[in-house]
């Protein structure tokens, strides 16, 4: 910690900041020297063609990539000013701070209520009273605009919900753990346009309370639903600017080509 404070002052307005982040899957290098500063409270989108390392970056910040034993990482990733690969850092606490929403909605095959309480229970040891649990469930579901739809069937299996509702539930179940960052890996790719719209609406709703980093294949979505935008290509960050600027006056040729649909 002290060495870092000497070299660079910690910018508290940054939610995620990386320095020289490299990542290998076995011998394949997926990320090259990523230096990113993602601001707190904003919605930042990541765009780029398939295989450019967007999802890999996301999965690194949540440390879920380390489930696979052939992943090797070098460099530094700070979340809320602290290096998540520090020797005194407990991986589970990182995952608690950094919630992750996956491409395919993945509610657990238990009731809606238990899904919401899952994260909370495993981090508190399940010693919360029923009244408090009810409150947690209600507030989480209200935040994702799902409460009215499911309040009468909280004991139903979460897997019986529609895909859109499942994805909202997956966002809702992160909230009781009180994360500071929400990572979303193409959260709308399994949803129809109506579902997509609903989830995007939800993003704006959550804006400010959480730092949101959303990977998307859909450039229109990046444009609509984010304030800053990162363009990645072949494991490198090409451009990171304010979203409007990125789409109006991109600085790099690769960015122009991509957003104009010349490849991708």
């Amino acid at each position, binding site marked *: 910690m002290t060495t870092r404070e000497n070299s660079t002052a910690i910018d508290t307005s940054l939610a995620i900041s990386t320095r020289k982040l490299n990542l290998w899957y076995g011998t394949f290098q997926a990320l090259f020297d990523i230096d990113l500063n993602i601001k707190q409270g904003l919605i930042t989108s990541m765009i780029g063609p398939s295989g450019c390392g967007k999802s890999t970056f996301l999965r690194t910040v*949540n440390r*879920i990539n380390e*489930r696979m*034993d052939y992943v090797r990482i070098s460099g530094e990733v700070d979340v809320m000013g602290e290096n998540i690969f520090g020797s005194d850092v407990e991986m*589970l*606490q990182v*995952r*608690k701070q950094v*919630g*992750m929403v*996956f491409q*395919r909605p*993945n*509610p*657990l*095959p*238990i009731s809606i209520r238990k899904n919401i309480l*899952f*994260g909370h229970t*495993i*981090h508190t040891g399940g010693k919360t009273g029923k009244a408090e649990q009810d409150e947690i469930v209600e507030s989480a579901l209200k935040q994702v605009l799902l409460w009215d739809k499911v309040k009468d069937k909280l004991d139903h299996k979460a897997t019986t919900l529609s895909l859109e509702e499942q994805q909202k539930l*997956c966002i809702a*179940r*992160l909230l009781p*753990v009180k994360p500071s960052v929400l990572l979303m890996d193409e959260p709308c790719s399994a949803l129809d346009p109506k579902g997509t719209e609903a989830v995007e609406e939800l993003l704006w709703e959550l804006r400010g309370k959480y730092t949101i980093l959303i990977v998307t294949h859909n450039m229109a979505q990046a444009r609509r639903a984010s304030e800053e935008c990162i363009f990645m290509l072949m494991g490198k960050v090409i451009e990171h600017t304010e979203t409007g600027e990125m789409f109006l006056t991109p600085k790099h040729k690769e960015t122009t080509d991509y957003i104009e649909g010349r490849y991708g």
Partner: protein
Amino acid sequence: MNKQTRASSKTTDFDRLNRDWYIDKAVQILVFIGGISAIVFIIGIFIFITKEGMGFLLGDFSFKEFFLSPNWRPTSENKATYGILALIAGTASVTGLAMLVAIPFSLGTAIFIAEFATGKTREFLKITVELLAAIPSVVWGFIGLAIMNPLIIDIFDVPVGLNVLNAGIILGLMAAPIMTSIAEDALKAVPDRYREAAEALGATRWQVIYKVVLPAAKNGLLGAVLLGVGRGFGETMAVLMATGHAINIPGSVFDSVRALTATIAAELGETAVGSPHYKALFTIGISLFLITFVINLIADLVVRGVKKG
């Protein structure tokens, strides 16, 4: 001649049956016979044992004596009695103990293989478990007779080492490999995204297994246990060798017992075909057939439930 010219004058030959057509038909019939033969055999077996045991069921059979009397004295000079209560107690006690041994073993192994072991360790373990499942039951019986027997006499200071404890442990070890395989399949069938979801929320490995994987796989695991129970009821040779083969309602695990299956195996060769004893043995066969059939059916339905839910 006339006919031939007409045939050859046709430009299409949509009705031509070539060699592939005949091969296809032949294979279809062969596969159909193969498929239906299982049903034919099971019905045939059932009809056969029912026919052989029927005479007893219709004649000397007394429901009360057969199921509720512990006296199995088919060769008594004065009055032969055919009570299988002691035999049922023998089979049930051995199977019960076997499950106590097999369930922790097989579930533990399955969880380790499916959730923790990776790469070569996992492959090695899977092959070993399959090899264990292939050990002939007479070998297990031999282990019970030659190794467990003196060991139990030594350790527990009892006069006889061929008893419920011996047979239960042997049968438990015998049933464990197949239970492990099925339990592992059930754990494997749990989609990885459930694990990923739970881990992304900060759950530990154990929390993932305990709170997500086991509940999601519970039907398959229950199916594995029921198949183990079915195996226990049906096992003959090892049980015959390790139980002590004494008709007895066991009061403790150190009592010798006799199993239903072992009774048939030991006595059928020495009875006159068609005698009441012979028929009584076949009635035991019917009971066993029905018991294992019901257990397997329940196991099957339970495992199937996993796919629907």
